[in-house]
């Protein structure tokens, strides 16, 4: 409403009525009151009907149901869960499952997407063509269709549990997923985690010191090798000091399924592969446009200065490309997280699927939908804030 507020200074026409709609200030207030009034009226109408309907169906409102016993099982969870636990805990399991698939998905999709984006710019004709074929096929097919395909691929092509494939001793592949042995629980794992934490702190200080030294003396310090050595070395020392346990928790067939070890369920596999394959196609385009946005002259200048190609990429091209890449990349991360809700369609117990079961059992439709929406808003906001912080850090500082 540009014109209205800008010319508020104009005196109203002589003899005009003081509350005329031709007065810009009055008009602005009038329109806002009108719109707000309509929004409130619609809102009141909906809430009134809802309360009316709820009392007729005698559904209690509020989140009290979260403490009641859920009495449904959940296929996989990161924390201990039993059907006797509460709906609240079930929902927490769902949130953690969503976070698990989103975080792993974001990491893998970034790696795959970057590879494909760079491959599209390769001077090798075959690689460039293959990468662009991938992008054009994958991003033009609905993600849900791709999920169904991946899920069917596992559940229909794999043998049943009793005839599970056993490619390597201890590893079993069947319709129920991939079962892999893991090292059995031992106090040394805790010590190793502690050592890793110390290593991370050490690396942070080392980086600071190396940077200060380079600014003071001009001498570069081999920070990459040193950090890697710290990160691997300290936990390794802790492992050896702890007696280097080698006991394995091997999956065994018990009743109708395998017990022990770590399982990659078909549902998790399908949702993860589906999300990664789909989002990577979009990330590839983001990366490609980011690299293309960096002037070729920059690369030539770096070459003229005798900087080798790895350093050119790391110190000249990437920092500039990142500025173009990060904002659209944020949207792709958000999309991946939101698309993880498609898990519902193949039975992976993400937060939407668990909230859906809950609202079907309890009839608490409004609370259920509100919890889904609220959680996603918090997650989206978190990703946005983090990526905006990162974006600000790498943005071009202009004088």
């Amino acid at each position, binding site marked *: 409403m540009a*014109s209205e507020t800008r010319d508020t200074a104009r005196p109203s026409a002589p003899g005009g009525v003081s509350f005329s709609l031709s007065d810009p200030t009055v008009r602005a207030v009038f329109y806002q009151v009108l719109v707000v009034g309509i929004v409130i009226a619609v809102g009141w109408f909906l809430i009134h009907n809802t309360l009316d309907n709820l009392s007729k169906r005698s559904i209690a409102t509020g989140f009290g149901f979260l403490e009641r016993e859920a009495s449904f099982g959940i296929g996989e969870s990161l924390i201990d869960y039993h059907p006797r636990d509460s709906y609240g805990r079930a929902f927490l399991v769902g949130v953690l499952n969503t976070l698990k698939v989103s975080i792993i998905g974001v990491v893998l999709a970034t790696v795959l997407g970057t590879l494909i984006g760079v491959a599209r710019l390769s001077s090798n004709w075959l690689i460039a063509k293959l990468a662009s074929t991938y992008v054009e096929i994958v991003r033009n097919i609905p993600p849900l269709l791709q999920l169904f395909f991946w899920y069917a691929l596992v559940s229909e092509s794999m043998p049943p549990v009793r005839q599970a494939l056993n490619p390597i001793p201890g590893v079993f592949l069947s319709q129920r997923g991939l079962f892999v042995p893991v090292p059995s629980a031992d106090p040394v794992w805790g010590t190793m985690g502690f050592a890793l934490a110390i290593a991370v702190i050490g690396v942070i200080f080392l980086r600071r010191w190396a940077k200060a030294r380079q600014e003071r003396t001009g001498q570069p310090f081999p920070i990459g090798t040193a950090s890697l050595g710290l990160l691997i070395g300290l936990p390794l020392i802790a492992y050896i000091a702890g007696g280097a346990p080698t006991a394995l928790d091997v999956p065994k067939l018990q009743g109708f399924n395998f017990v022990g070890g770590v399982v990659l369920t078909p549902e998790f596999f399908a949702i993860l592969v589906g999300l990664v394959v789909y989002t990577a196609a979009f990330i590839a385009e983001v990366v490609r446009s980011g690299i293309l946005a960096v002037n070729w002259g920059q690369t030539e200048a770096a070459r003229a200065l005798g900087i080798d190609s790895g350093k050119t990429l790391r110190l000249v091209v990437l920092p500039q490309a990142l500025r173009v890449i990060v904002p659209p990349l944020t949207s792709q991360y958000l999309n991946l997280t939101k*698309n993880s809700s*498609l898990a519902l369609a193949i039975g992976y117990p993400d937060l939407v699927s668990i909230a859906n079961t809950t609202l079907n059992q309890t009839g608490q*439709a409004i609370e259920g*939908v509100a919890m889904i929406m609220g959680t*996603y*808003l918090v997650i989206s906001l978190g990703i946005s804030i983090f990526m905006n912080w990162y974006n600000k850090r790498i943005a071009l500082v202009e004088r």
Partner: protein
Amino acid sequence: MTDNVHTGNVSTGSIPDERPPSNTVGPVAWLRNNLFNTWYNALLTILIAWLLFKAIPPLLDWLIFSANSFGTPPQVCRQEGGACWTFVSEKLRFVMFGTFPYDEQWRPLVTIVIIIALVLASCDRRFWKPWLALVWIAGLTAVGVLMWGGVLGLTYVENTLWGGLPLTLMLSVVGLSVAFPASVLLALGRRSQLPAIRVISVTYIELIRGVPLISLLFMASVMFPLFLPTGVNFDKLLRAQIAFIMFAAAYMAEAIRGGLQAIPKGQYEAADALGLNYWQAMGKIILPQALAISIPPLVNTFISFFKDTSLVIIIGLYDLLGTAKAALSDPAWRGFYREAYLFIGVIYWVFCYSMSKYSQKLERDLRRGHRR
């Protein structure tokens, strides 16, 4: 004669005839430049060529050479391996039209043709005239009459029987055409100087964009019935359609906002100088330019929206993906998921790919228009 000329300047020595450099043109040079220019590219080329050589013949064999088609029963298909296109030919009408009465299926077929014709006509910039809106209204009315029937001697078909491709197309086309005016208003509201209107628009857009479409569909399927006065009830299809409109409006509003932001301030000032009021300025000066700039991102929104209509399967509607999945649950035809998903995947792909190619072409054309 030629001898004479030659002998005349023989002492200076003519430049010996050389063959043109062989390494810049021709297939060998192309190979060298594009596939074997460095040692690691050569290695990669050989590796990929070997992988393709391993993968493509079995794929072609499955797709075409050992495929079974027309009339091969499923048992035979299972034994022989290879794609079973009988599945597609047997289930074609169900996948395409869902449970629409069999003898009346010419009606959804004509619907598909009308919608595609409308979309194709709207892609031609020569038809971007006000009467195009009238053509759309007429076309969509015809679609409604054909699908529902009940008039002109057509039997009535209730919309719970609709399914397949017409449902997918109708959900997207109707959703987009209703969401478009709403999104223009939202975009204008977001850029408005009236704080109350701006806050309402921003809240709506960010709220919708922050949650997954599934949660909106849930809201439509489980909460809408609670919102309405007792006795009033929408059916499932209409509720899904409303959810899609709410969703599309928020995303399209952001595309249009980009266009609005690209209009230089001088244009607003010019409108003010001419004494135009807000709606005149927007309708005659700002929006025509802003919408033209937003067309490519709008088409991208259309594409993702078209793909997202497949989510209605979650609230129990049978769009193209839904009918394909239902066809797979027939015990006689279980396990032919590759054929089913490949078939409808190609349909989705053709629609989306042509839209994206169109958007790229449009982007080039419009940029040419702006060049001086």
